[in-house]
């Protein structure tokens, strides 16, 4: 029989640690070799025990599960980290992955997934809570879509006034502010803006801002004679 997977369990709640201990003890191929109650002691125990996998809670009083993960992964390249958390959202997931964790398990699914996750990361693969994979994929697809839109460019077809309005809208000025700066009426500014967005095929302020960024228009603000010192 092969060596058991050596585990370090890190959670600030005794009930959870105890539960994990019991749960993982039923797995024939696993062995909990140590526990830690916060990030700092986790790093310490990990360096000392050199476990194969660390089961890491993210929120422990002050949230140092991420810092601990970063530190452990950096100092013990062979050790893998599975994050076990209540946070069912991709912001934490993103952070955890950036910190170097390769597994992400929600506490509501701890009983069914933690053992699987431990085995997967132990093999050097990644285990994510299944619904997240969909979210990540959606992100990827969406980003690709938005990027393509700017290929065709009608900037040269804009009048000088429309260019001014474009730049100021992109800088976040209100219509009233733009009107005052360009000595136009608010209504005229609205019209210019609607027209330039149509010419450039921009659908929202967000797209307009990104267009201006790509074109480097927002940096023109220094050259604007009306902007003052």
């Amino acid at each position, binding site marked *: 029989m092969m060596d058991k997977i050596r585990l370090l369990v890190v959670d600030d709640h005794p009930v*959870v640690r105890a539960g994990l201990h019991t749960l993982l003890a039923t797995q024939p191929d696993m062995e909990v070799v140590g526990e830690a109650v916060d990030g700092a002691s986790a790093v310490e125990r990990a360096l000392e025990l050199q476990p194969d996998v660390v089961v890491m809670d993210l929120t422990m009083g002050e949230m140092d599960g991420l810092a601990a993960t970063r530190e452990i992964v950096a100092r013990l390249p062979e050790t893998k980290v599975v994050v076990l958390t209540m946070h069912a959202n991709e912001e934490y997931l993103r952070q955890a992955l950036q910190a170097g964790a390769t597994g992400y398990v929600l506490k509501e699914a701890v009983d069914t997934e933690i053992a699987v996750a431990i085995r997967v990361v132990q093999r050097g693969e990644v285990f994510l809570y299944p619904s997240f994979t969909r979210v990540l994929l959606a992100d990827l697809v969406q980003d690709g879509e938005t990027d393509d839109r700017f290929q065709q460019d009608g900037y040269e077809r804009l009048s000088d006034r429309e260019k001014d309005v474009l730049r100021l809208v992109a800088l976040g000025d209100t219509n009233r502010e733009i009107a005052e700066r360009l000595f136009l009426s608010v209504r005229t500014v609205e019209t210019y803006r609607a027209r330039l967005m149509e010419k450039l095929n921009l659908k929202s302020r967000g797209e307009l801002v990104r267009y201006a960024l790509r074109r480097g228009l927002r940096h023109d603000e220094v050259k604007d004679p009306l902007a003052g010192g």
Partner: protein
Amino acid sequence: MKTRAYYHSLRFKITMGLLLAVIAVLAISSYLRYVSFRDLLTESLEHSVDSPGEAIEAQLAAYVRGRVILSVISIVVILLMSDVLMGRVVVGRLRQFLGVVKRVGDGDLDAKVVTEGEDEIAELAEAFNRMTDELQRQTRKLSTLNTLATTIGQSLDLSEILNTALDEVLELMDVGAGWINVQDEHGEKMRIVASRGLPEEAAMAHSYCLWNEDICTDVLQSGRSQVFRNGEDHSFDKPNAVGPLNAVEPLNGVEPLSTGLCPAAGYLQEDGLIFHACVPLKSKDVVLGVMSVAGVAASDPWMFTEDSLDTLTAIGRQIGIAIENASLYEELRQKEVLRRQLLEREITLREQERKRIARDLHDQTGQRLTSMIMTLSLLEEAVPAPEVQARVRDLRDTAAQVLKEVRDLALHLRPSLLDDLGLLAALRHYLKRYQNRYRLIVDFQPLGLDGKRLPPDVETALFRITQQALTNVARHAEAHSVTVLLEHRGTSVQLIVEDNGKGFDLAQVMDSRPHEGNLGLYCMRERASLIGGTLTIESTPGRGTAVFVRIPVEGGKGDDGQDSSAGGG
């Protein structure tokens, strides 16, 4: 009368002069005629001796007739000429007078009629000059009053109002000393809050009990203006009360006080106090204070008239109203400060409370449920009976469901993300949920915020404002898409939430008092202003709505030029 006498004497002189001249001419011509007539007479006497008497008679008659006609014509001519000359002299002066009247009428009060002689015209001219002088004085007074009203009306700062008013009054009245007393908040003492021309100890030490029997106290209590002059004091219970100032009798049945000067004026007695006038500073019949002016012999030889008291009383009323306005404004300001403090406290407390409950749900309830899930899961495998196993399985699933709900509840109360990972992460997450829930396209564009954390109160406020703005979009805008821009540039953070919905008439919604329909907008604005920011809303029916929030933050860690780094490229 003098004019008429003068006119007569003038006419007499001119007539006499002309008569003398004519008489001289007549005398010479008579003599010459006489000489020629004598020759003629001698000749005819020599030639006709037949009837010498008849010839002489005829000649004489012709001579006399000629004389009479000549004389009458001369007198008529003389009378006509004297009238013309008289007219010239009188009309000329009147014309000059008229010219001056016209100039005065056009506003040139410096124009003066030249007065010479002692006739009626000269008298009239003098009277006219006096009138323009008076007019000039009144105009000056009115313009000073106007300046005063404008100056004190413009300010809402009490000390500024009183000092300005006092300066203006002293200039207008042309006196050297003046001071303003107001009651203290307990209504027991008066103290000087502004003074000019008082010895320092008088201005400093002047705080005295209201039951003093001096005219300042009396004015404060009775609301009547009073003048103390030459050792006597005189009351006027209304500004236009008539009566000579030195009258000892009470006016309109009001008994004048037999008391003395107020303490501050007492300090001026050594310098030869001539008068001390006290007027109430009233607003809506409530006396808020007393203004005094005092003249001393050395520097103010000018006498205080009843007219001056009227003016002073009128000024007192204006100052009274200004004081009232200033104190109302101050009250309002303090209430606003208090309101803001309470609101800030309320918001802070609510956030803290939500944070605490969210943490508790997360840490306590969440962990216990986690432990329960694990235990139930183990139990499920441990029990042999399939029936019991299924029951345990259900329990385990219920626990997992409750855990999810607790997590959502905590998130709803206050996302731990906001504290743990910052505004950007919290917004990204919130927007994703929002987009799924309301089926709206959300375009989120953060700029210049990568890896940066803003002050916690700014992050919380911006998160809550975004939530509120997006809730409004979902509820009212009927929009298909909404853009959320969050940019940190230089020393400020700007948040823009813009939808493509139906928009609304901003003036109509925001001008009305807060009600359920616009309360959300007011809340957002308050929230922004509590952390020193501004919130602007632009909306046009049919063109969507944009909410702009700008919050000043400590100048970020330098790299402003990097704000394009978050762009699509």
